């Protein structure tokens, strides 16, 4: 029996406004607990929330970028529940008149573009942060009231990989718009997933399980994969799926039932009387539409056209707006886009990952990277050594030329030196020589590798190959 999965994602993105959604407290991470609070975000009696105009416009911006229908009239509602991270015992959210409905986002799935529907995008406020001790919980309300965008997808996602791609595309769009920092580790972007399984071909939906507590895109993918396995096992043993919320445990790589009392949520939504209605005029929509930056899809199309690369080649660079800008800055200095792109998605991305830095904080100017690339292209330094030079540039901040000079890393293209090493290698590797003479091309690459090794990576591989071929002809 085969099953197919139906996945919907609910993303919460903190907006990076200067102040909170309904009061003038600063939005800042890592400040002294409760130092960014006031009567409004503490829910003290007699306080009056007033909506942050920038947060509202950011929300409209995102809605438009996701092709949503921005509603003419929108209101806020109180979502009532008791939990100490919520000082008012209700969250200001949006219920039946959200800011926008019915958008979509495109992901690449099995080499085709697939549209994932967006049910709604609405604005609400974040809750405070709890720290659980052995005998008490401590509450810090600095985060309470931070503007939060809720972006709900339709159950159009049909694999964990598609869920991952959806999140990647959504994050890129939010970053291009400059409205959110989208850092899952810091919690400025959070994602819950709904998943159900059904027999292939069946139209009705199976029992839905909600997954929470994933703190990276990969964790979302892993949790969904785990859940498909768990539910498939249950279904093939003819056991039912319990509709419940499960938490992902990143250490055990498994989901666990939250085991709360069996009771449907009853939030008793009602209109927030402290906030009047909001009307979104066409003029505001036009103004915001006019201010939308080039979005990932458009940038990708332009890169393909302007730089002669394929969509696949530019995919990684496009995902990171700063990296895409950096790519263009490099291309202005040196017109070989493909080589630059390879550097960025290869060695430079590897350094960003291992150092946990962004392109902006890596301290590598486009000019100094191009200087290094030029040295590789004109044969002054080998590709292999260049990667070490890059590391050294990042460590010391010195330019490529001086590092190569100081450490004697210049590529050896001088044939007399290389002839000698090649001769030694041929002597020492009789077996590979025989293999090559018997027609095995791979054996030659092995011999080239040996020469590279003996030269400390400095030999020019092209020249080495020519020398070896020449010598082996005469064996």
């Amino acid at each position, binding site marked *: 029996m085969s099953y197919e999965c139906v996945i919907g994602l609910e993303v919460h993105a903190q907006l990076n406004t200067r102040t909170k959604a309904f009061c003038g407290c600063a939005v800042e991470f890592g400040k002294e607990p409760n*130092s960014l609070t006031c009567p409004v975000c503490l829910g003290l009696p007699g306080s009056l929330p*007033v909506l942050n105009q920038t947060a509202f416009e950011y929300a409209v911006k995102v809605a438009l970028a996701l092709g949503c229908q921005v509603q003419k009239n929108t209101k806020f509602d109180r979502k009532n529940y008791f939990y100490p991270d919520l000082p008012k015992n209700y969250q200001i959210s949006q219920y039946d008149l959200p800011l926008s409905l019915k958008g979509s986002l495109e992901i690449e799935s099995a080499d085709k573009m697939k549209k994932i529907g967006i049910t709604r995008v609405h604005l609400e406020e974040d809750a405070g942060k709890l720290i659980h001790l052995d005998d008490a919980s401590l509450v810090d309300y600095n985060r309470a009231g931070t503007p939060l965008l809720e972006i709900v997808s339709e159950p159009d996602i049909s694999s964990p990989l598609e869920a991952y791609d959806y999140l990647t595309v959504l994050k890129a769009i939010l970053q291009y718009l400059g409205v959110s920092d989208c850092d899952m580790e810091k919690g400025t972007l959070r994602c819950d997933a709904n998943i159900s399984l059904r027999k292939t071909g069946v139209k009705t939906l199976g029992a839905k399980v909600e997954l929470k507590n994933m703190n990276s895109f990969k964790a979302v993918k892993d949790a969904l994969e785990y859940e498909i396995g768990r539910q498939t096992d249950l279904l093939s043993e003819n056991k039912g799926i319990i509709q419940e919320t499960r938490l992902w445990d990143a250490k055990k790589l498994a989901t666990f039932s939250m085991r709360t009392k069996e009771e449907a949520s*009853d939030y008793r939504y009602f209109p927030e009387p402290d906030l009047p209605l909001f009307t979104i005029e066409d003029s505001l929509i036009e103004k915001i539409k006019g201010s939308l930056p080039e979005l990932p899809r458009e940038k990708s199309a332009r890169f393909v056209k302007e730089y002669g690369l394929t969509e696949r080649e530019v995919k990684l660079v496009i995902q990171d707006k700063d990296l895409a800008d950096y790519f263009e800055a490099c291309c202005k200095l040196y017109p070989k886009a493909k080589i630059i792109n390879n550097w960025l998605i290869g060695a430079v991305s590897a350094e960003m990952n291992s150092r946990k830095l962004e392109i902006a904080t890596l301290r590598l100017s486009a000019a100094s990277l191009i200087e290094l690339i030029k040295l590789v292209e004109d044969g002054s330094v080998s590709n292999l050594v260049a990667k070490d030079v890059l590391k050294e540039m990042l460590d010391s901040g010195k330019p490529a030329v001086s590092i190569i000079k100081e450490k004697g890393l210049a590529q050896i293209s001088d044939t007399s030196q290389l002839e000698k090493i090649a001769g030694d290698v041929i002597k020492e590797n009789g077996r590979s020589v025989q293999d090559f003479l018997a027609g095995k091309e791979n054996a030659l690459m092995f011999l080239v590798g040996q020469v590279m090794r003996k030269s400390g990576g400095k030999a020019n591989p092209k020249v080495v190959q020519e020398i070896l071929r020449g010598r082996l002809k005469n064996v």
Partner: protein
Amino acid sequence: MAISKDTVKYVAHLARIRLKPEELDVFSVQLEEILKYMEKLNEAEVSHIPPTSHILSLKNVFRADQVRPSLDVDAVLENAPKKKDRQFSVPKVIA
């Protein structure tokens, strides 16, 4: 509309109120009376009135995204029954 004791229990739970058994009886009768009184509203002719969430004609009241001073942490915690490490201390809760 009859209000059962179960309904009163449920509403009390949502409001995190503990009720004694005799209170359940009292409140189910009282709530029933209150709701019966409210049902009078159903007699009003409202077919020509659009659903209204706010009675004021105010619209689009915004605040500029400008930082204003927050409260002093000592003042924030002043009325807290329990505090620890500059934070509110509450009975342990895990969702």
